[in-house]
């Protein structure tokens, strides 16, 4: 499809146009905005989720009581559907919403309501906050399982050698769960590029397509503008980018293991 001028409804006339769709995509200013939004989203939410998830996993790993309670509570955002979570965030961050009331009238940090959802980075930030909030639980569970496989004797030996907690973390914990870190990194990077529902529900690309991500932009071009060929080309570009990213991540990890 990506090599044809394939517009919605034009069943009989779909001329072959070679790589023109690809050229259109790459030259498109809005695609560039969407792509950089997606990249920023991924670069910020992936590490944020992993660090917070690992931190909470380590805290839960270190306690004896209420383990299950904490695990269930931190996992709740993960099982909340994207549509619902997005709407809750949209409601909280609305100009007349709870957060602005809290900032303006309770803490008196600013004089007037902040229009979170009416600017490019405001909208993206809300989506990033939502993505992080929703992703911590998954990371927590995955890292918790990994931590349980690290033998206690390693820590005991390190303690005898006089290594402090921080040192133990970097020399024992991190190397032992390297496989899991890679797994999470690959899955979350894919997830970051996959961000769609939150943007669609919270900003729907507004204002003026400034908060689009690659997938919402693809969706808009296909189902609102009817440019199926363009969207197919865009999809293919994203698939290639992801395949390259995933293979680079695998390489990096493999090299580290050998050294």
């Amino acid at each position, binding site marked *: *499809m990506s090599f044809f001028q394939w517009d919605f409804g034009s069943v009989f006339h779909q001329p072959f146009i070679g790589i023109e769709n690809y050229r259109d995509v790459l030259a498109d200013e809005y695609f560039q905005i969407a792509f950089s939004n997606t990249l920023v989203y991924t670069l910020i939410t992936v590490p944020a989720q992993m660090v917070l998830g690992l931190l909470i996993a380590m805290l839960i790993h270190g306690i004896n009581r209420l383990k299950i309670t904490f695990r269930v509570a931190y996992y709740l955002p993960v099982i909340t559907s994207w549509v619902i979570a997005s709407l809750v965030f949209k409601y909280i961050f609305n100009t007349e919403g709870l957060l602005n009331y809290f900032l303006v009238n309770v803490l008196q940090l600013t004089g007037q309501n902040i229009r979170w959802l009416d600017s490019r980075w405001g909208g993206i930030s809300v989506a990033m906050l939502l993505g992080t909030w929703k992703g911590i639980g998954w990371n927590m569970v995955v890292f918790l399982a990994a931590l349980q496989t690290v033998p206690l004797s390693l820590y005991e030996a390190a303690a005898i050698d006089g290594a402090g907690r921080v040192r133990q973390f970097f020399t024992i914990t991190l190397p032992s769960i390297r496989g899991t870190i890679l797994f999470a990194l690959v899955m979350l990077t894919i997830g970051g590029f996959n961000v769609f529902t939150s943007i669609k529900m919270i900003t729907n690309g507004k204002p003026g397509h400034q908060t689009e991500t690659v997938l919402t932009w693809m*969706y808009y071009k296909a189902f609102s503008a009817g440019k199926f060929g363009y969207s197919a080309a865009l999809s293919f570009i994203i698939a290639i980018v992801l395949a390259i990213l995933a293979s680079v991540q695998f390489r990096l990890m493999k090299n580290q293991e050998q050294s």
Partner: protein
Amino acid sequence: MSKKQMISGSIYFLLIAGMTIVVLPMIYMISVSLKPNGALYEFPPRFFPKLSEITLENYQYILSKVQFYQNFLNSILVSTVTVAAAAFIAAALAFCLARFEFPGRRALFTFIMLTMIIPGMTLIVPQYELAVKLKVINQLWGLIPFYTAWVIPYSTFMIKGFVENVPKELDEAIYMDGGSVFTIFFQVILPLTKQGIASVSIFNFLTAWEEFPWANTVINDDLKRTLPIAISGFFGQHQFTQWGYVFALSAFSLLPILLVFLFGQRFFVEGLTSGSVKG
């Protein structure tokens, strides 16, 4: 207080503080759904409703509309059929991949892994053309086969790990007793991997239950919508959004997921982690 107690005390404090922040949005959602559905945004906004204003009118409205029962049933139907179909197909596929040498086995497995890397959303355009060709636009049958196809790669990958844990000697013993491949599959593999299948199925249920972009694209008829689309339908059709209704329906649609999750919690965590830790 000893140093050890201080440390564990601060750990609990941190965990409880974090937990409060994490569950806050959900509590707020329930709280808004219990408030009267009057003004667009109340001022000053309250986190909890006043005791005197707590009302079930939003829930009564939701429960009085036939459409939402239909949406609920649609979601149940789509999710359960997807789960059943995916469990059977993925188990059979995993069994074949784990137990038999056949030409193209490696290629098939690599292909399945590749489809896991590419996000489903990027395929939405060709899938839409396919759905038009198959004449399943605006039908629940336009959802089920697609959802099933989406979850099969991950399910196969997970179940394969469980099949490989079943000792091969069992298969051989059955062959000696005159059993067939089907005897092994139905009487050995399925019962012994049922934990894995259960964990994958919970995950698949969740996927189908909350799926939004595809259902939003394929279904336009109010009565054929699944719950996520019904919830998003509150936007745009009225002059202003009635948030009380939105969050009442949201709470209502979270209920089955919560039940599935609480009952299957043990399986769920196992299914999530077995792949990541082993690999």
